[in-house]
């Protein structure tokens, strides 16, 4: 299958919520070491709320991928809080604007990831190497572009997720210069950035959601 549909987008959010819940303590610990320890809880609360709304029969049925992502964006914006709330909120909002279609092919997926990255940069004004979620999303966007010609759309997602994961791992030795971890200066080195890590988890969830559909 070479397109991702609305059902995929909804599955993505479900898998992301499940995986973030499972990684909650890991994210908490990362943020406890170089931040204030709330990243896991904040994101868990936000994604649970997204799933809650997706499952709510009172909500209008989503007809495009963009509608799913817009619902995720506004829900996260109003439930996550902290730095990650507006960052993820803006990322999904921008992504929703370029995905207002019932199905996405490889090009659509590339646009989605690029738009998310742009949203994060527009809000947070960070660049690669500052030990933030940009260190996951920028390599993800680049890898997606490189994979744009892939036969299966899931391969584009796979490339993006793998790059995000590697990008997140690359934050370990970095000294943070943006966000709360920057207050620790040198002491921030040695710990993976929690926002980069959660970004990698969310992109991996997109792959799992696509694989689940055989996509």
């Amino acid at each position, binding site marked *: 299958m070479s397109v991702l549909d609305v059902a995929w987008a909804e599955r993505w959010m479900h898998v992301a919520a499940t995986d973030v819940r499972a990684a909650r303590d890991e994210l908490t610990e990362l943020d406890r070491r170089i931040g204030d320890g709330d990243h896991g809880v904040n994101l868990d609360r936000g994604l649970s709320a997204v799933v809650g709304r997706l499952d709510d029969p009172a909500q209008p049925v989503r007809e495009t991928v963009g509608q799913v992502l817009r619902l995720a964006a506004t829900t996260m914006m*109003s439930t996550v809080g902290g730095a990650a709330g507006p960052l993820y909120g803006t990322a999904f909002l921008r992504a929703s604007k370029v995905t207002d279609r019932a199905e996405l092919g490889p090009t659509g997926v590339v646009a989605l990831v690029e738009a998310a990255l742009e949203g994060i940069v527009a809000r947070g004004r960070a660049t690669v190497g500052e030990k933030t979620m940009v260190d996951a999303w920028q390599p993800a966007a680049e890898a997606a572009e490189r994979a744009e010609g892939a036969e299966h759309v899931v391969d584009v997602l796979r490339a993006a997720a793998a790059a995000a994961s590697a990008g997140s791992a690359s934050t370990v030795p970095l000294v943070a210069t943006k966000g709360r971890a920057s207050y620790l200066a040198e002491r921030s080195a040695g710990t993976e950035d929690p926002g980069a890590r959660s970004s990698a988890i969310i992109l991996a969830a997109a792959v799992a959601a696509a694989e689940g559909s055989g996509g």
Partner: protein
Amino acid sequence: MKKLLDDPAQAVDDSLRGFALAHAGEVEVRFDPTFVLRAGGTPPGQVAVVSGGGSGHEPLHAGFVGSGMLDAAVPGAVFTSPTPDQAAAALQAADGGAGVLAVVKNYTGDVLNFETGVELVQADGTEVVSVLVNDDVAVEDSLYTAGRRGVAGTVAVEKIAGAAAARGDDLATVAELAERVVAGVRTMGVALTACTVPHVGRPGFDLADDEVEIGIGIHGEPGRHRVSASGATDITRRLVDPVVEDLDLAEGERVLLFVNGMGGTPLSELYVVYGRARELLAERGVEVTRSLVGSYVTSLEMQGASITVLRLDDELTELWDAPVRTPALRW
């Protein structure tokens, strides 16, 4: 972890409900989204002053809502910035027709969420000016950080901006005075113990029995360096010196000296620190003309303190002295 709470996820709301009942004459608490409004709202035609941030710093900010200080406060989850829709709702509800000053502590989360909230209400025609509080000298203000954090100095900004608004100053003037406070206020803190965020269930950092953390923030995040635990005299010097140097205080200048408790430190110890700080300032010929001692900007049950110094002039002194009637500060 032992706390006087029920469900940690409900703790902020539970606390706000109790707060609303205890101070029914002064404040009103709204939910969905959550914010605290001065009872009766901002007097028509008066500039509103609004602030907010993560919970866990009580009495900041909700305790300063009332007459002569804040018109609304926006509490987030514990140590988590509130969301844009909360900020927007509070800004809108507080607007008395003369515009709103948003007092924002300089944390990425607070900045981004308030920024988004302000965009929302400005689109609806509410006039908002934001002032960023960044008094924490522990963070070197350089290219390599998110900038100095906003900590206990926020109390001075809120008090003085609120007094300016109460005497009828317009939004530009209130904002200018708030900026003057920001320019003249500096803080440095120390932690003796860490604190435990209810839904995390374990301390925010690990500190040995013979260590203290200098340059601590107010979110359970670790500070800049650790030193072995020493007496009040030594620790006070480590807090006062960087503050005074950063402010470049000259002999003969007048200041407000504010010794703030982090939550778990007894008042008696704060007075010991206050006394030591007075000596150090006197040695430099700095005159303490106003004082505040107490736990006003806390980190849950953390043991520790911060020292804040604000450069005073006649106008700031007058505004500091102006009447204030809030749950946590009144004179």
